[in-house]
């Protein structure tokens, strides 16, 4: 391992210091839970706008995509799309095979060149 070796699972109750769980709290309290638009006063707020801003703050999906971590988008548990699941991994495997093939080609060409 190049950096810290992972230990067992870390359990933390949600009454731990807020800083530990702030992302969890914001993600839930501002982006999940029941929405009841039930009062004239609430209508004064541009809730949609607020929600969009909060969404941007809570989760940067694009950044995650850059890291190649986007499998939840095709996850059958989330989207119900069963066949979407294989694409990511298969795509990677295909690329690996292509690379291996290219590597093999390169070697045989080099051998022929001698």
């Amino acid at each position, binding site marked *: 391992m190049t950096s*810290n070796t992972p230990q067992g699972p*870390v*359990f933390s109750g949600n009454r731990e210091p807020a800083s530990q769980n*702030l992302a969890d*709290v914001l993600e839930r*309290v501002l982006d999940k839970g029941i929405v009841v*638009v*039930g009062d004239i006063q609430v209508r004064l707020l541009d809730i949609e706008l607020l929600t969009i801003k909060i969404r941007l703050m809570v*989760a940067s999906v694009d950044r995650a995509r850059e890291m190649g*971590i986007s499998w939840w988008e095709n996850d059958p548990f989330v989207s119900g799309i069963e066949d979407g699941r294989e694409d990511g991994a298969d795509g990677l495997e295909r690329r690996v095979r292509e690379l291996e093939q290219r590597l093999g080609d390169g070697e045989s060409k080099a051998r022929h060149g001698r």
Partner: protein
Amino acid sequence: MDVEPATVIHAYGIVCSEAGFDVPDAGIGGAGVALLDAGPVSGIFSILPETAYGAAAWTEHAEDAAWLARVATQHQAVLADVVRDTDVLPLRLPAMYRDEVHLHRMLEAEAPLFRAALESLHEHLEWSVHLYLVGEPDAPAGDHPTTGREYLRQRAEAVSQRHLARVKREHSVRDAYASLADLSRQSVANPPQDSALSGRPEPMLLNSAHLVCRKHERLFFTAVEETAARLAPLGITVEVTGPWPPYNFVELGVEHLESQP
């Protein structure tokens, strides 16, 4: 003459009226917390000063992360206390009402919906699971290349190894999610949290929420431990937080009649 300072009602969540639990002592801004009985369901609420928490304050602080963080944390702290003892439907912020009459009217109007949701979620809590990539296995130290061809071969091999490691990691993360989902009534994988917000430099590989029966908590934790043991050799660490009210499993968008223009 109106000398009373203006107030607004902040609602935290909704419980069954016959539920037995201790109402938390303090809510947002240290305000007292009370229960409003509306027949089959009751609302947990605080009376807050309008200047600090009214519509204007929300508009003013819509992009103020520190303010939102404080209000969100205090809102959640109240629900965290309640969820230990009983089922509670969490409300999304901002959950503001002009006065008790308006909150009561909303609770009464939506009581059948809330009651059904409470019954379907009975005895279930939400647990959050995060997987972080904290270390990568070391690349095998090959012999120092003596030829250009050898150098290129080693480079290509390193690339191939990294791809394989990534494929393996992705499979492992999926398997981890699936095995925890097996012990949950419902599960959801949310987008990983931004490190700016999580305060963690390591990439987050999984951000999932699981709806777990109180009776099955031990089983779930055992599965988490097993998962952690399987993932540790891949440089992946597992973190669990909770119990949370079922934020991720209350898909109720209620457009109350009064809000119609």
